């Protein structure tokens, strides 16, 4: 069947990226004016956004990869929840050393990613169904590990989690005249390293470039000599690893595991990617945009928190509305393009 709809490459993403960054700066600016009293303008507020959303940064980066390759993974949230629970259980109930526990969960991520990847790439099942099953599978597994909340008390882990890394600018002076430097936690560092690595893979490695080809036009990619199945498979393996890493980073923030954790996380990851300019149809996307997508989501949350009158349920609704807006925009654009061509 001939496909006459030709997707626009968004001029190398630069235009859409510009829009996303502009939107973020605009929202931040609004926040500065509205919520100045609540300390919106401090460096720490911005850094808190990073600390609270480090896990999302990693997960959204993985999601961006999968979306670029033309697939989707809605199991990410459940994997994060499961990983947190596994870490808590391993360290608290089974007395495993922190580093070994971390290694175990990362290995789990890779294996789980490989399982999903095999079903999608080689058995050619629909990614949505497979990852939907994966989502329920992991959520149920989390309950099997433990129904109660487990708080992590492992000193090594907590040490990593709570150590403050001073940032040497943007300091504020508190009421007693003492200079307070803003800080971040190591989880932010991990997240930033991860997203940089993903950026490099996308831009400079053959594997990364083949993701774009496969996502843009699978048929053409095949004819151009790319091993489509292997590429798709590896995408999900890498994504599984990143999901587990996201879980680790997330856990460093919450230092506990419980059944309902990270529910809806996949939605936030998809929203961040889409708002950041990743096309749901595949072939187009950039982790830089995704990063700003996460920041936009964080800004919305901070707004709602600072405002104090709106319930936190509005977070999900506003994010869904934004996502809906961008999805509709993308599809209208595709339809408009198709009509122009024919």
């Amino acid at each position, binding site marked *: 069947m001939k496909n006459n709809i030709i997707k626009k490459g968004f001029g190398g993403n630069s235009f859409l990226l510009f829009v996303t960054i502009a939107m973020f700066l605009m929202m931040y600016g609004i926040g500065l004016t509205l919520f100045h009293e609540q300390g919106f303008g401090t460096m720490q507020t911005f850094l808190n956004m990073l600390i609270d959303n480090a896990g999302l940064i990693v997960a959204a980066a993985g999601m961006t990869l999968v979306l670029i390759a033309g697939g989707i993974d809605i199991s990410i949230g459940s994997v994060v929840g499961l990983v947190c629970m596994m870490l808590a259980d391993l360290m608290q109930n089974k007395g495993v050393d922190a580093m070994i526990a971390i290694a175990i969960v990362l290995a789990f991520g890779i294996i789980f990613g490989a399982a999903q990847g095999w079903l999608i790439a080689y058995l*050619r099942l629909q990614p949505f169904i*497979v990852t939907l*099953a*994966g989502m*329920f599978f992991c959520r*149920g597994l989390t309950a*099997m590990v433990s129904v109660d909340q487990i708080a992590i008390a492992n000193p090594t882990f907590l040490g990593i989690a709570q150590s403050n890394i001073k940032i040497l600018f943007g300091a504020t002076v508190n009421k007693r005249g003492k200079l307070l430097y803003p800080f971040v936690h190591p989880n932010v560092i991990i997240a930033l390293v991860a997203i940089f690595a993903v950026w490099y893979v996308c831009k400079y490695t053959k594997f990364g470039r083949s993701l774009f080809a496969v996502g843009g036009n699978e048929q053409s990619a095949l004819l151009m000599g790319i091993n489509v199945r292997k590429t798709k498979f590896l995408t999900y393996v890498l994504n599984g690893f990143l999901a587990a890493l996201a879980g680790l980073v997330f856990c460093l923030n919450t230092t506990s595991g419980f059944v309902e954790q990270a529910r809806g996380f996949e939605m936030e990851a998809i929203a961040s990617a889409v708002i950041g300019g990743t096309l*749901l149809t595949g072939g187009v996307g950039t982790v830089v945009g995704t990063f700003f997508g996460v920041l936009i989501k964080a800004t919305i949350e901070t707004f709602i928190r600072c405002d104090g009158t709106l*319930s936190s349920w509005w977070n999900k609704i506003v994010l*869904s509305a934004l996502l809906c807006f961008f999805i509709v925009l993308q599809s209208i654009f595709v339809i408009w393009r198709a009509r122009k061509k024919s």
Partner: protein
Amino acid sequence: MTTRMLRPRDIFRQQLFLPIFALCLMLVVNFIVTPTFFNISIKNGVLYGYIIDIINRASELIILAVGMTLVVASSKGTDISVGAVSALAAAVCVRLLGSSYDAYAVPLILAFLACLSAGVLCGAFNGFLVAKLKIQPMVATLILFTAGRGIAQLISAREINEKMVPGQILYVRMEHFKRFGGFFPHVVIPTPVFIALGFVLLTWFILNKTALGLYIKSVGINQKAGRLVGLNSTMIIFFCYVFCGVCASLAGFISSSRIYSSDANNIGLNMELDAILAVALGGNSLAGGKFSIAGSVIGAITIQALTTSLYAMGVTADQLPVYKAIVVVLIVAIQADEFKRWKAAYRLHRKMAKGVAE
């Protein structure tokens, strides 16, 4: 129910073979685990027994599965917002009814219609995105999948200290309301069974007494051909999503009546996977086209039977999804084209090896 006559029995059997086989399997397993499984008695004036319980609890799933069947058949996609829409519709209904012990704040019939309207609106939203804007169904319904419960929480607000605080669990105290999820006086069969039965019959009527069933199948099998013979595939697909929304809201109504409250977190939880599973177990291809409502109904009952046996074996509600996820993947894998190709290649390979040996 298939829109053709009973003559070619082999085809009939082929379509419903899987669901009936699965159901029998489940019943046998249940019987093994619980020897009193098939016992039915009358206690306190109502029917009592495991079988009754299964069909009762399967009612919401049956209704959801019917809606999902049409969505899958016409658009080759799935609607994963059904659980959230159930919760949303339930919240609308309960909020309107109020929590007085003496009277409904709004007549029940109006609240019920409002509940269904919420379902229609959500279905129309999904349908517009999928049919008109041609967005992938999974992605389109992902929006309500997330936003739905949030909106339900906002609707479930109660006045506390002179402020409306959302995120509450609202209760309906009228005894009358509980009848829809429970029993009507002097009726031995649970009400949800009646509602489900009535709804399935209504659906059968719509699909088989109008040309709609034929249209949905045609559009699902060959959309191009459908257009050239004069069908409006956009409207047909849109209708299926609206219908699915109505199903979700009806299921939400029943659920809220059972617990005489609206719990936006738990109503319809995990039901989307169950509904997809029911459709797949019913022998319906997830790639669209021909469908069987009867198959989905049987599939829904089978899943409820599966749930019951898992409970009996000590699995908790939170852990259920693990097993269901495995079953879904197995069924979808067996149905997959690629798997069939492997089977054919394997058979050819075996034949050639035998041929060489001889």
